[in-house]
């Protein structure tokens, strides 16, 4: 692949991939490693992909696989899947609460969601894929994606409430320390 074509591919997708990686890996450095590794795999193997239109899905799938490869999946995943469907009602206060929070706090809450639900939830909110594409990307049935979104949203609302509560207790400025992003801001 020509260097400029590779650069175009990077420019088109690295930001969304980083957001996905940050929600999975939780630490900025690990998220950067995941994104770099994904494009490295592309540079060594992905160029053989015949349908370049599928490059985006290929990149997200590869990033997710690279993430899973670095982790040991355990029985907990199954036990989480067995939990009943999450609370479906959104309180009006939840929306207002979310509106008042900043991106750092929201990412922190998202990272509190169980890993099984976090991946489809982040892909859903990135708005780059339909739920059918998310199912294909995560290699699970469509029904599983929907149930994971449902449970994930319930966990997310609980995590958002927890972060908002901690924020209120943290002080007048209402900012909860978030080391990775805080460090980045300090460097600006």
């Amino acid at each position, binding site marked *: 692949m020509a260097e400029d074509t590779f650069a175009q591919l990077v420019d088109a997708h*690295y930001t969304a991939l980083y957001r996905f990686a940050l929600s999975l890996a939780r630490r900025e*450095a690990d998220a*950067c490693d995941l994104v770099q590794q994904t494009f490295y795999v592309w540079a060594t193997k992905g160029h053989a992909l015949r349908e370049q239109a599928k490059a985006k899905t290929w990149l997200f799938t590869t990033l997710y696989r690279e993430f899973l490869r670095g982790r040991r999946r355990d029985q907990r995943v199954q036990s989480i899947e067995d939990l009943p*469907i999450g609370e*479906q009602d959104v309180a009006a206060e939840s929306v207002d609460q979310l509106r008042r929070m900043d991106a750092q706090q929201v990412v922190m809450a998202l990272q509190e969601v169980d890993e099984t639900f976090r991946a489809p939830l982040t892909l859903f909110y*990135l708005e780059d894929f*339909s739920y059918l594409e998310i199912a294909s990307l995560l290699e699970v049935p469509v029904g599983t994606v*929907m149930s994971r979104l449902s449970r994930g949203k319930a966990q997310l609302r609980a995590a958002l409430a927890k972060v908002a509560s901690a924020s209120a207790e943290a002080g007048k400025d209402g900012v909860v320390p978030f080391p990775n992003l805080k460090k980045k801001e300090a460097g600006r």
Partner: protein
Amino acid sequence: MNNHDAKFLLQAYRPGGDDSADSQMTLALEQARRDPDLGLWLAREQSFDQQMSAKLQAVTPPSGLRDAILAGGRMSAPARTTQAWWRGAQAQWMGLAAAVALVAVITLSFWPKAKAPGLASLAQTALHEMQGAHGAPTTAEEVGVFGKWLKNPATRLAAGMPVSFEQVRAAGCRSLNVGGREVFEVCFLRNGGEYHFYVGKRQDFNIPGNGSSPMLVAQGGLATLAWADEQHVYVLAGNGDGSALKALL
């Protein structure tokens, strides 16, 4: 379809996306239009989702990530070529024979004019050295004026070396081979951190443009900055994400 089932489906619905093409989703949406309670629930759900999406879109990657990805892509270019040939070979043995013959002809024809390595190759070598392949290092204390210059807290490395390449060689710095080109390495301490400095002749390397903009590569807790001036190519390597390296430039 009862409201519970409709909610289950509608939680995965985003307006304007591809999701509405699903027939079950269409039914659930129709039900939300008919049932005011379900309609109110859907409006809140979508408001929540829009807020979440907006917050997530506000997250930006760290500066330097793009450059690091591009540098990594450039480094892997030789591997890509080799792999592509093997893939073709697995499919067709005749193709393999032809490819081997072609490679032999090309290699014999162009061997003496082999393409010069770039800054990315030099940075990769530095990372490889840092990751454990490191031989016995030469320290700044062993190389006189050059070493003092590296250790001096006031030195800005981007200003260029105060000594020539020949003087660096004469000082006895550790020598490395990068794509057949000679490169020297010196380790030094500054601001409590340990750094590795590599220098080669610019004419030995393929540097597009003037090369003066440092190229950052961060990988596995290590980082390198590579740049060039009119006479030389340089790589500064150390631990961390590269911010400490930038401070020395």
